[in-house]
């Protein structure tokens, strides 16, 4: 019996299983007693919220796929069939449709938290990079999912975005043909997007698993950005953070439910209630709100290839963020200048989003150029230099000292 894991589980059946496949021991170690810094604020809820969202999206998606028809002549009506004839089809679809927006809201806040508290810095670089991969996969999945209802914005959005690849010299048009499966967005495009929209979420689950696995090797960052010095600085994940995450999940579900039940189409575009028509271009082709900042970066550059490169660059720059930031201090709490500049960066992201919703003319072009300039300068110029110049505030000795060494506030 040398190969058996020595399990402490008293229940004989569970013990038998755990001795052969120690998943119970693993869950106990990773989610039960897992030592977690004691000083998380509610920003640390958002990873769990993203996980909950992903699970709900996959479950609702499986049921939608049972009634959806990936065929250009049937897709639009099959979505209405789900909305009208399938039992609680409207509920499943509205949860899924708004779930995509919720996933992005939650993930954007999760990313902001990582940037504000320096969660990407050593030894968490790979954890961060896996997170950026998750963001890219999410975007691809969301983009292809938006094409499936085969409304006007589905069709024209797909046409505009896939056409971006034609900017690459030489290979561009071959990439576009490959994406389309033909010479325009049509049946083969819809079929392959449907296939990939079903596949990618499971790839996402895989990368999320790696993201969490990497987290459990290096441990969580915390609002002070200093490592725990011992057991007094940490709490077991359960029940402390299971309880705290549950509060966040409940509040989050209220927000999600408010959209689903009372404003299900608020974040959508009226044009997508018109079936796709290749002969009629809508007046404005606008992507979903979560893509608007990148769309604005694209349109702020007069040259198409350069615009496309900038757009992809605005995401890919995140991959090297751990090396662009030269400061030794993680948390922006102790970086008197950076903690304002990171908020300016958020502002530039929001301004880009607003610009992306408007036609690129007049003031919107100027605004989007200023915002795009700051977006990139923040990463490529300010962060490397500021890390050297800035004089950080003194760091606390330990988490416990910071938490208990000062007057307690009521929680």
């Amino acid at each position: 019996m040398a190969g058996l894991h020595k399990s402490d589980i008293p229940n004989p059946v569970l013990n038998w299983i755990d001795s052969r496949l120690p998943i119970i021991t693993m869950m106990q170690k990773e989610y039960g007693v897992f030592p977690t810094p004691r000083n998380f604020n509610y920003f640390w809820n958002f990873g769990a919220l993203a996980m909950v969202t992903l699970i709900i999206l996959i479950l609702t998606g499986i049921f939608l796929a049972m009634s959806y028809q990936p065929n250009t002549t049937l897709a639009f009506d099959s979505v209405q069939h789900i909305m009208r004839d399938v039992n609680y089809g409207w509920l499943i679809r509205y949860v899924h449709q708004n779930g995509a927006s919720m996933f992005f809201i939650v993930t954007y806040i999760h990313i902001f938290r990582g940037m504000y508290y320096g969660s990407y810095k050593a030894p968490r670089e790979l954890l961060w990079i896996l997170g950026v991969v998750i963001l890219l996969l999410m975007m691809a999945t969301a983009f292809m999912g938006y094409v499936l209802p085969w409304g006007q914005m589905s069709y024209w959005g797909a046409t505009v975005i896939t056409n971006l690849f034609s900017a690459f010299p030489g290979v561009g048009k071959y990439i576009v043909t490959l994406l389309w499966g033909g010479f325009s967005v049509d049946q083969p495009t819809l079929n392959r997007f449907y296939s990939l929209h079903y596949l990618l979420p499971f790839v996402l689950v895989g990368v999320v698993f790696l993201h969490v696995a990497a987290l459990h090797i290096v441990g969580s960052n915390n609002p002070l950005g200093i490592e725990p010095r011992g057991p007094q600085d940490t709490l077991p994940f359960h029940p402390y953070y299971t309880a705290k995450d549950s509060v966040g999940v409940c509040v989050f579900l209220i927000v999600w439910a408010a959209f689903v039940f009372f404003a299900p189409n608020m974040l959508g575009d009226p044009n997508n209630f018109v079936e796709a028509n290749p002969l009629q271009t809508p007046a404005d082709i606008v992507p979903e709100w979560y893509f608007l900042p990148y769309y604005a970066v694209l349109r702020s550059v007069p040259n198409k290839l350069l615009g496309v490169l900038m757009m992809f660059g605005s995401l890919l720059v995140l991959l090297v963020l751990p090396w662009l930031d030269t400061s030794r201090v993680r948390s922006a709490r102790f970086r008197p200048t950076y903690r304002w500049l990171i908020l300016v960066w958020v502002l530039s992201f929001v301004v880009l989003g607003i610009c992306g919703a408007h036609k690129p003319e007049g003031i919107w072009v100027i605004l989007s150029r200023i915002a795009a300039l700051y977006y990139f300068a923040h990463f490529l110029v300010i962060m490397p230099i500021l890390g050297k110049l800035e004089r950080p505030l003194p760091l606390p000795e330990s988490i416990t000292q910071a938490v208990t060494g000062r007057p307690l506030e009521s929680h």
Partner: protein
Amino acid sequence: MRTPRFLFAPMRTFFALMVAAALAITGLLAPPASAQDVPTPPNENWSFDGIFGTPDLAAAQRGFQVYSEVCSTCHAIHQMHFRDLTGLGFNDAQVKAIASTFTVPQGLDDSGQPKEGPGMPANQFRSPFPNEKAARAAMNGAYPPDLSLIINAREGGANYVYGILTGYADAPTGFTMQDAMNYNRYFPGHQIAMPQPLQDGKVTYTDGTPNTVDQMARDVATFLYWTSNPETTERKQMGIRVILFLVLLTGVTYAVKRKIWSDVH
């Protein structure tokens, strides 16, 4: 677990910025990008507005009458089946009777020819034209859109439809009209192919409601809101229960969290 208050200042600023940004987005997104030739529709009160609002079924039934007697000559609602009319408050016998007054395609007869007959509850509403080309040929090149989803498919929703139906007027002096087009205050570009469909007294309501253009437009917009969103009543009633439950659950969960954390603080 608290650090001094001054350290939280950036967080407070962040939230203030986010609120400001949200307000800015709402303000800036509201008018469409090409605001100059897209008129703002009127802003009416609707039975289905707000969290508790559900479509006024009496109005929607009258609107169904307007649709059947006027709009259906040119406009389809092909997403709808006669059986869906139970959602307007008709009982099964009434739905059966209504369906039987419509002639609908019924597949092929024994000799392979297309067959027609009185509608059954399971049948779809019949489209007035066999296809888009036939519609354009009959309609001087214009294509009357399907109205099943029209409220959701137009910026402004029911206000837009109401605006179009009540927005016919003489073209202002100096405004050049194309042939066979009609001036409308609320149609983008102000030139609409559809002649004014409603005139006072066009339909006769059985419940004694005055049959003014305004009333008929209001009723048919309510009916079309329902065809666009037939689940509205069920959705909002469920939503109120779900939110109340979640608020309660949040309270309980927060109490549990406080209890668990009480030995840490």
